[in-house]
């Protein structure tokens, strides 16, 4: 489907007081638009059908253009983009890219590199972070098990100066093309969670593709660890891996949905353009008030989500975000995911059978959006955390209610 590029973007630019976001969006289009048009969009449907991951060569090309370094510190050659600026870049990438997995992988690779850099280890910076910024290495999070975090089975046992790691991580996003895995395993002696940097070449590491509904070109894999022997020097966190993981996920939550913001905007534009060119009873469908109403509702979803996520990112840029579980960040992620699902569902309702065709990407976007029902903090778990905080704060000073 073709659409006049940037209908809403032009509209928003005229309304928005935030010229800096517009400048970043324009810069993103100028620097990375050709890459997306050449290496991402033409094969998006085919990769989705086959479940093949976006090749690392494409990520390397993105690295060569500076994309993977934009949010890294200037001191190591990065662009020093703060969360607001980085979010604006990801949002525009989401708008340009018909494959949501691309934006997901970009944000994931950068988040892992940032977390490794925060360890302060210069050897890690040389071996992992700088190559990741160039797209020569790719990092993934190996956290999720088929159990809650207090019941992880993957375990590390000390053997002299080394550790021997055995276990299974059943869902590793980006695993298919990753070579470095930030891996959370239980310490057999203390029961604490430790974090190791495991490498694809380590003996005993095995990756298997996992069939998933959405994000099918994001290379989701399971990671099997069969007595993987690693030196203690590969410990990224020697204690409280649980807090380490929560800090990683929390910081990532609002940035993760920025790609969805752009994709929602593209879906709205595509949908409106398609309906405008469809004539029923002698009139374009966009002249029917029920269609106008639904498009209006979709616009509200897009702009409300943008406002909420930008609000959370501005808080992060000011350094005011709670590092472990920030209510505003978590609520923004939750809200944007629900609105994205709602928005593309409305497009499917408006477009009828045409919207359901594979050749249009609406159903693919729906499957991708649904991936974040459970990803980066399941929606229902976020609700529980948020509700619990509300109760603690609002019940303050109130009398206990006696059972009647």
């Amino acid at each position, binding site marked *: 489907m073709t659409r006049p590029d940037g209908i809403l973007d032009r509209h928003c630019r005229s309304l928005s007081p935030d010229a800096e976001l517009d400048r970043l969006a324009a810069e993103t289009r100028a620097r990375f638009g050709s890459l997306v048009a050449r290496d991402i969009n033409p094969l998006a449907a085919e990769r989705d059908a086959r479940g093949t991951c976006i090749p690392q060569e494409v990520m390397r090309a993105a690295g060569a253009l500076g994309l993977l370094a934009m949010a890294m510190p200037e001191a190591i050659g990065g662009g020093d983009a703060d969360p607001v600026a980085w979010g604006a870049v990801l949002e525009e990438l989401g708008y340009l890219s018909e494959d949501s997995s691309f934006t997901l992988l970009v944000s994931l690779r950068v988040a892992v590199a940032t977390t490794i850099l925060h360890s302060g280890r210069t050897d890690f910076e040389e071996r992992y972070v700088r190559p990741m910024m160039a797209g020569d290495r790719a990092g993934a999070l190996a956290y*999720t098990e088929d159990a809650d975090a*207090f019941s992880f089975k993957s375990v590390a046992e000390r053997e002299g100066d080394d550790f021997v790691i055995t276990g299974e991580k059943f869902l590793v996003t980006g695993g298919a093309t990753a070579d470095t895995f930030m891996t959370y395993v239980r310490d057999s002696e203390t029961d604490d969670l430790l974090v190791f940097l495991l490498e694809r070449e380590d003996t005993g590491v095995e990756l298997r593709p996992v069939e998933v509904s959405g994000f099918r070109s994001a290379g989701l894999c399971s990671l099997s660890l069969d007595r993987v022997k690693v030196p203690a020097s590969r410990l990224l966190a020697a204690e409280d891996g649980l807090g380490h993981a*929560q800090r990683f996920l929390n910081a990532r939550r609002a940035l993760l949905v920025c790609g969805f913001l752009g994709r929602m905007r593209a879906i709205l534009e595509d949908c409106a353009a398609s309906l405008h060119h469809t004539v029923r009873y002698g009139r374009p469908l966009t002249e029917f008030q029920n269609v106008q109403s639904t498009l209006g509702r979709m616009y509200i979803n897009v702009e409300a989500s943008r406002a909420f996520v930008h609000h959370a990112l501005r808080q992060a840029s000011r350094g005011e975000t709670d590092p472990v579980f920030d209510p505003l960040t978590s609520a923004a992620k939750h809200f944007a995911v629900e609105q994205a699902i709602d928005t593309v569902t409305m497009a499917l309702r408006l477009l009828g059978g045409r919207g359901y065709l594979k050749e249009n990407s609406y159903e693919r976007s729906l499957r991708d959006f649904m991936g974040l029902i459970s990803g980066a903090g399941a929606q229902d778990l976020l609700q529980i955390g948020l509700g619990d905080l509300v109760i603690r704060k609002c019940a303050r000073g109130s009398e206990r209610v006696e059972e009647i």
Partner: protein
Amino acid sequence: MIIQLPGALLRFANYQREFQYDSTTLKTGLDSLMAQNPALKSALLDRKGKIRSAHLLFINGDQLDRGSSTDRALGAHDCVEIVTAIAGG
């Protein structure tokens, strides 16, 4: 004092949500809680004996800063609530 556990920690305390102790400080109250429920210890505390960063403590509705001292004196009617917000990847 009264100590209330979040849903995520109930299984470490035989699914009992609320505990009452005659302790006079937060620390001794938490010690009593873990003496009664040994499985809670590794879930609630790190290796240095500090509250893990994944848990937030509220005392009578006021949030305690992470890393705060647990030597704080508490009375019989004070209520300690633990909030655990843990998400998957």
